[in-house]
C-alpha cells in the first residue's frame, strides 16, 4: 500500500461506480481541477461497500468530479491517516471534510 494514493483518477459516473466492488475501503473525490475535496470510507455498515458509498457521492455531486478507491479492511485508521496526510501536505483538510471534521484528528509530520 502506497502511503499516498497514487492510482489514476476515474470520472465519477454511473458506469464507473457500477463496476466498483462491494468491499470496504477508503476513497477520495476530486473536483474538475484535480483538487481533493473529500476523503471518506465505506465502512462495515455500508450496504454494498465502496459501490454504495460512491453511489451516494454520485447522487450528491454535480458532474465533473473524479474518484479513486482503495480496498482496505482497516478503513477507519486509513481514513484518518489520509486526512492527516492531506493536512500535512496542504495545511488544511479537504473542503468537504473541513465542513464536518472528525472529532479528534492527530498531527503527522511524514517524511
Amino acid at each position, binding site marked *: 500500500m502506497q*502511503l499516498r494514493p497514487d492510482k489514476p483518477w476515474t470520472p465519477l459516473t454511473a458506469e464507473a461506480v457500477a463496476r466498483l466492488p462491494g468491499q470496504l475501503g477508503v476513497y477520495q473525490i476530486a473536483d474538475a481541477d484535480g483538487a481533493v475535496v473529500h476523503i471518506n470510507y465505506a*465502512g*462495515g*455498515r455500508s450496504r454494498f461497500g465502496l459501490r454504495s458509498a460512491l453511489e451516494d457521492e454520485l447522487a450528491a455531486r454535480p458532474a465533473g468530479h473524479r474518484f479513486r478507491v482503495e480496498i482496505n*479492511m*482497516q*478503513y*477507519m*485508521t*486509513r481514513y*484518518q*491517516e489520509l486526512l*492527516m496526510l492531506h493536512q500535512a501536505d496542504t495545511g488544511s483538510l479537504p473542503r468537504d471534510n473541513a465542513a464536518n471534521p*472528525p*472529532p*479528534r*484528528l*492527530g*498531527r*503527522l*509530520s*511524514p*517524511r
Partner: protein
Amino acid sequence: MDFDPSDEQQMLIDNVRRFVREEILPLEAKLDPDASELDPKDHARLVEKTKAMGLYGIDIPHEFGGPDIDIVTRTLLAIEMAQHRAGLYAPCYGTFGGAGLAQLFEANEDQKERYLFPTLRGEKKAFFGLTEPSGGSDPARAIRTRAERKDNGWVINGSKIFISGADRAQYGIVFARTDASKGRGGITCFIVDHDTPGFHVRRVVHTLRSSSYATELEFKDCWVSDHQVLGEVNKGFAVANDRLTRQRIPYAAGCIGVAIAAHEMAIEWSKMRETFGARLSDRQAIQWMLVDNELDIRTARLFTLQAAEKARRGVPFRTEAAIAKLTASEGGWRVVDRSMQIHGGMGMTKDLPLERWYREMRIRRVGEGPSEVQRMLIAREVLGTSVR
C-alpha cells in the same frame, strides 16, 4: 478468599451495567463497527451522567479529586465497562474520564502543575513511548534512543514504534538511554511536549486494531531541559516497570469483560439455533465449549481480583499481575474464538461485535508485555529468582 462483591460494590456494578446497556449500546448500534469515538455531543451528555453517578475520573487517585474507589472495586467496574463492541480499547468511549499516565503521580510539583493536573482536567492528552524498532519485550536492553547532556538539558535522538495516541497527544513520556554502559540502570524518563523541535510523528502503524492506530516517532536533535526529566536520571526503568505492573490489572479486567459479553452471546445463540433437529445447546460438543468458556472466565476473574486485592493491601503483586494478564488475555481470546465458532458464519460478520473482539483480543497477548514475558516473570517466582 471470597471475591463476591459487597452490597456497595454490587450497587456500583449494577449502575455501570445499566449505563452500558441503556446508554452505550443504543448509541453504539448506530456507529460504524470499527468506531472508537462517540459523537462529541453524546460524549458530553454521558460525561454529565457519569459525573452524576460519582464515577467520573475513575482512575484518578482520591487525593487528586477522583472518586473514592479501591482497586478491587475498580477492577469489578472495569469488567462491566468493557462489555460492548468498542469496550476493549475504548471502554464506555472514555465517558468515565481518563487518568493520564500513572507515572505522573510521581512527578515533581512543577511537572504536576504543567502536566498532571491539566491531564486530570481533560485538557491534555499524553502518550507512553517505550517500545522501539529494536524491541519492546526487553526494553532495558533494546532501547537505543539516546539522550546526551547539553546546555542544562538533554538532546534526544532515536525512534519509537507502536506508540498509541502520540499524534493526538500534547506531550508524552519517553524513555531514552542516558548511560550506555549500564543496562536498566542507564535509562531516563523524559516528558516531551508535542511541539518540541525535533519531535516528529512520522507515520501511522496500522494493526489488527483497525479502530485506532499506533504511530512511529522520530527524535532528531530534540532538546529538552532538565525540568523535563521525570523522576531521577538513570532511574527511568523503574518508572516504566511500575506502570506496566499496575496497568496489567485493568488490562486483564477489560479482557474478562469482553469474554463475558462474548460468552453470554454464545449461550443465548446456542439456545435459539437449531441444527439437525435439536438446539445447539443440547449438543455436548457445544456444551463443552460453553463450559470451557466458563472456566476461562472464572479463572481469569479470580486471578485478576487476587492481584487487585494484593495491590489494594499494598503488598507486592508483580507475579499476580502477570498471572492475571496472562490468564485473561489468553483465556479471553479463547472465549471469543469459541463463541465465534458457536455462531457459525454470523460470528465472522461485522454485524456482530465478535470479529472486532477477536482481532483486538489477539493484540492483548502482545501489548503491555507479551505472554512470554509474563511467563518469564512467573517463572522467576517459581524458581525463586524474583527481584521484587
